[in-house]
């Protein structure tokens, strides 16, 4: 019985101290951000590996998510003779939910795991401590650029995802299913509000970008310096990011559209 209680207590204390370490870590990383003004090349290289290399998966999945939404939406809407609202359906679901959320989930799998593995391996092979030996702050040199690059890349990726999704729906709806393109765009423009829908989606993707890159770099930095530890950290990144994104999405949606 006491063993059981002790186990609960230990895991609670453990997760609390992890949370504390993660917050302190974030604080140090944010403190490293201003020095990046002098070395924009570091951020540039990270935007390349986080943002540009994620483009293909975002482009392909965005287009196909939009196309599938159009097919499914058409089959339901046509029963009510409301197939002209297909544009509204696709645009609102992509801008408000699917764009930011699916991008964040793909980001966790494509870029977050790579970040964790990279930083975890740097720690395992003692590159981080040798940097400290050379009086180079790994927070500024390694962590801060990656955090900033993730924060910058995510809204851009989400915007590309949503835009291509709508284009995919346009090709399926207007091109293949033979809808008229007047109401498709017209009704969409009439019901999509720039501030309420587009900007709220951007805010969501900013939050997700911040959380996803924070979790990714923290898990890498906090990984046990063994090959098993790095593999566990990578798994944790994907799982924790997905859970955090889905949970935060509910909270943000309740705040914005509730």
């Amino acid at each position, binding site marked *: 019985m006491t063993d059981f209680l002790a186990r609960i207590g230990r895991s609670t204390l453990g997760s609390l101290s992890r949370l504390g370490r993660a917050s302190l870590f974030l604080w140090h990383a944010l403190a490293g951000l201003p020095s990046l003004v002098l070395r924009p090349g570091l951020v*540039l290289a990270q*935007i*390349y590996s986080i943002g540009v290399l994620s483009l293909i998966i975002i482009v392909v999945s965005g287009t196909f998510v939009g196309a599938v939404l159009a097919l499914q939406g058409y089959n339901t809407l046509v029963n009510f003779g409301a197939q002209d609202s297909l544009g509204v359906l696709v645009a609102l679901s992509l801008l408000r939910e699917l764009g930011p959320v699916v991008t964040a989930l793909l980001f966790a799998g494509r870029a977050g795991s790579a970040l964790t593995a990279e930083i975890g391996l740097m720690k395992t092979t003692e590159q981080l401590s040798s940097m400290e030996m050379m009086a180079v702050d790994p927070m500024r040199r390694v962590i801060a650029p990656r955090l900033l690059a993730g924060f910058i890349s995510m809204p851009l990726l989400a*915007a590309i995802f949503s*835009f291509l999704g709508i284009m995919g729906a346009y090709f399926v709806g207007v091109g293949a299913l033979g809808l008229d393109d007047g109401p498709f765009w017209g009704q969409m423009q009439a019901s999509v*509000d720039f501030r309420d829908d587009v900007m709220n989606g951007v805010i969501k993707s900013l939050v997700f970008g911040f959380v996803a890159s924070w979790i990714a770099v923290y898990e890498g930095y906090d990984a046990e310096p063994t090959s098993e530890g790095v593999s566990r950290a990578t798994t944790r990144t994907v799982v924790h990011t997905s859970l955090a994104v889905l949970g935060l999405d509910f909270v943000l949606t309740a705040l914005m559209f509730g």
Partner: protein
Amino acid sequence: MNMGRSVEIWVGLFVAAGFAAFLGLAMQVSNIPLFQTLDGYDVQLRFNNIGGLRERAPVTMSGGRVGRVKSIELDARSFDAVVTVTIDRNYNEIPEDSSASIYTSGLLGEQYIAIDPGGLDFFLEEGDEITLTQSALVLERLIGRFLTSMGDGNDDD
């Protein structure tokens, strides 16, 4: 150096594509209200019942859009709904005795205000009020009236 340059080009492309997508969303999908504050004059309409009319609903004349609903308030004394609409500056020769009605586009579509022009030589201006209005058709009320009239008909037989 060559490597670094191609990275820069790719990042530039990525950022440009991201902003282009954002701009596309803003212009093509949502037609931003920021650039769309209608330049025009405000006119008030009093209705007994506005049904499901909402803000930003279109105001039309002969089917063409001439303005948008700006705000909807309830007159606490007369219990009329006071609808303020902004009419485009280009349409500044709408007769003062025009009448307004609320219609529904399609069977279950969105509601809009239609203005039927009158014949006076005085034109509507900022702050004017159109009192000659016809309320929205509320489907339940219509069915209720139809049912009672059917009941009356049966009694007569």
